[in-house]
């Protein structure tokens, strides 16, 4: 009797070159990721421009926790757990805002921008127990910034942010850290997919074939060589960009204009760089505008993705319109590429959810052209190290 192929046959490949798809669907693995990755690594939370002035605050969720980022009167950006020390009601219930102090809406305990407990309502009620306010400030979260990007980590013992980022910063410290930028675009969606599938989509260039706009403006995606090269760095970070010479993006071939005008410092008009930080941040720079993707995993098959667009602070109206058009053309919710990416990763999640296909192939080797899978393999090596199991065998 002829044995039919099954979707559970292990690929005849090195263990580093395939993944067990249960890492994308399994509830226990998802919970483990929250504990071993999202509470232990630096997480991008917002851009400094979102807390531009003293008193500006921004809320975010990290590993199921609600966090407030606030710029203090001393201009320092601090992170706190968003919970009152009295009975744990949320101190801040808006996504963002400006405050002189934080007063809990429930029983009116009041905290300074530095997190210190400034006052309790009806204080005479605590006189009998001599309540020590100095021990009841908002619970801080470790926070550090680099190139305008604000990160937090729920683990106090984590290495300094700069050490975690390592040499991948070469891809983005210019322009992100050399010119004042601000967030001009924000949208979010709950994707019906696993968070790593969105990160994979952001990391691998092979899927440029999916996008008609990329096929037109990046003809090299169909060829054997590329002006861009993968950069594989420590801690699972990677990126791809060109060192000069051949154009990376030919906007005119797609019939689009404006791509080159107002290029950011260090960027050519026909250039694009993609940087993916472990575990979940993408920095995508298209000559004159920047996109940041941040993820909040909600479950094995649900992921909140936040998309930010960055432009130069102080742009005149004409230049801002050019950057906005360039951003929206590819990346906005009505952009050429983003809707297709979402359809792809949701389709993967539906099919993986059936359990019919057990393995994903990440076996392309192409001398570090962007369609090489070396960066994906590096990412999953880091995932395996942190999770204490192989992403191919789950052992």
């Amino acid at each position, binding site marked *: 009797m002829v044995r039919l192929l099954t979707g559970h046959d292990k690929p005849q490949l090195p263990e580093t070159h395939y993944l067990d798809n249960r890492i994308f669907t399994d509830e226990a693995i998802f919970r483990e990721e929250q504990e071993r990755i999202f509470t232990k690594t630096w997480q991008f939370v917002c851009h400094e421009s*979102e807390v531009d002035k003293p008193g500006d605050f*921004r809320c975010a969720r990290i590993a199921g926790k609600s966090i407030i980022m606030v710029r203090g009167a001393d201009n320092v950006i601090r992170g706190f757990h968003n919970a009152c020390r009295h009975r744990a009601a949320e101190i801040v219930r*808006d*996504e*963002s*805002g400006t405050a002189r102090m934080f007063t809990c809406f429930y029983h009116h305990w009041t905290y300074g921008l530095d997190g210190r407990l400034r006052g309790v309502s009806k204080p005479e009620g605590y006189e009998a127990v001599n309540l020590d306010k100095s021990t009841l400030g908002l619970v801080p979260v470790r926070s550090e910034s680099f190139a305008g990007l604000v990160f937090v980590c729920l683990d106090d013992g984590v290495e300094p942010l700069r050490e975690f980022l390592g040499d991948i910063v070469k891809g983005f410290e210019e322009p992100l850290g050399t010119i004042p930028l601000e*967030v*001009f*675009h*924000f*949208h*979010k*969606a*709950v994707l019906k997919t696993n968070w790593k599938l969105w990160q994979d989509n952001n990391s691998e260039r092979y899927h440029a074939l*999916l996008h*008609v706009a990329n096929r037109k403006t990046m003809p090299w995606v169909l060829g054997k060589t590329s002006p861009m090269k993968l950069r594989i760095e420590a801690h699972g970070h990677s990126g791809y960009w060109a060192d000069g010479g051949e154009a990376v993006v030919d906007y005119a071939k797609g*019939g689009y204009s404006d791509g080159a005008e107002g290029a950011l410092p260090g960027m050519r008009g026909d250039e694009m760089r993609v940087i993916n930080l472990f575990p979940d941040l993408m920095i995508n720079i298209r000559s004159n505008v920047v996109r940041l993707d941040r993820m909040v995993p909600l479950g094995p098959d649900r992921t909140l993705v936040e998309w930010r667009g960055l432009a130069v602070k102080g742009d005149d109206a004409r230049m801002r*319109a050019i950057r*906005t*058009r360039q951003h*929206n053309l590819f990346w*906005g*919710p*009505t*952009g*050429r590429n*983003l*809707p*297709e990416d*979402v*359809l*792809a990763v949701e389709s993967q999640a539906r099919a993986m959810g059936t359990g019919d296909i057990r393995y994903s192939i990440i076996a392309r080797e192409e001398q570090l052209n962007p369609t090489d899978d070396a960066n994906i393999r590096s990412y999953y090596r880091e995932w395996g190290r942190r999770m204490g199991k192989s992403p191919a065998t789950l052992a």
Partner: protein
Amino acid sequence: MSSHQEDLEAIRTVVQRTAALLDTEQFSEWISLFDAEGSYELAAYSTEIRRWMTWQLSDRPALKQMLDEVGEHVRDPARRRHVVGMPFVEFTDDATARATTTFSLFRTTPEGTSSLYIVGSYEDQFIKRDGAWRYAFHRVVSDTRVLDAFTHIPV
């Protein structure tokens, strides 16, 4: 019917046709509702970054290029259906007017599941040329900011 009443009816008809033409994907006819200098904007206010955002701003040539290429894109397979309220029209002069219209847009998947996709309003500027009212500026303000699916198709 008075001339004013005729103009009012003409503008209301343009708004209704806008929705119907998108629902049936008659994109050339949809673009023809715009004045030669007209443009389309999809805008939303972000409470997160506390500013208005333009998610799309396109003139007629850019709209044409995008809609001509729709067939080359991989697309959300859901059908879309607008439900459009009565436009509130104010005439600025004999040849220009503003209109505000609430709308909702539903998605129905190929399996037949319907869901609300976007709630918002049209905040439009009209111009009358050669006896016809067209969009000088068709601005779609989306209250909904967490979308079920993204789209290349105008809203």
